[in-house]
């Protein structure tokens, strides 16, 4: 799954560690999500959406299956 997490994080001028702290996950989890190697769970996706004030669909884009 693709996502715009890196761009959104950049708009806030947050490091991966900053975002990880706000989401209460590890920096490595943030990196794995941004690089598309890991798709977050629904609760975490909602948390991300709430943090950036966006809908889940505007942040996460399903990849081609």
């Amino acid at each position, binding site marked *: 799954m693709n996502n715009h997490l890196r761009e959104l994080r950049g708009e806030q001028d947050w490091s991966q560690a900053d975002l990880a702290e706000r989401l209460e*996950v*590890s920096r*490595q989890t943030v*990196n*794995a999500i941004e690089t598309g*190697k*890991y798709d977050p769970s629904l609760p975490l996706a909602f948390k991300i959406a709430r943090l950036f004030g966006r809908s889940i669909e505007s942040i996460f884009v399903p990849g081609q299956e």
Partner: protein
Amino acid sequence: MTRQIHQRYQREFWPPMLVYLLIMLLLWPLLPQLHSAWLKIGLALLPVLPVLFVVRAMVRLVLGSDELEQRIHLIGLAIAATVVSALSLAGGFLAMAGIIHPDGSILIWVWPVLVVLYAVSRGWASQRYGVQGDGLCDSGSRIARHWRLLLAALLLGGIAWLGHSRMSDYQFGVMLGMSAGLGLGGLWLALRHWYRTRHAA
């Protein structure tokens, strides 16, 4: 994993491991000298007590991890449990066929083999998710992991060398074996770190 979780794990893991090591080095060799059955049972099972605390630390580590870390732990444990189960099944069939004749002491190897396979497969799972290292947060330490392992190896090797005249062959063997294991692990991590640093530049 937050730094607090990682530091808590270190605090909860190393003291019982140290106690386990001291029991195996200092008390376990006294077993043949005991004549009372209850004392023998008590001393034989004594190493299990600190191991239970280690297990508690590991459980709290996993429960305190985030979702990706828990998935990596799960993959590591699943692979390790499957491989160890398959090996014990194969060993069991060979023993039933009379091809090998293991005694009960082979059971002592289940835990260390499981732990080693768990660490290796957790490292592999971490790579799949682009997580560096073995998926455990290392942000709590100021000293790189490979240096810590090499220092521990040197320390154990030094203690074994200095005290070998006062040790039994068993104690000396255990200390040397652990020193060698830690040294090899540290060397592997150091080489990997050097390779990655060189190729990242």
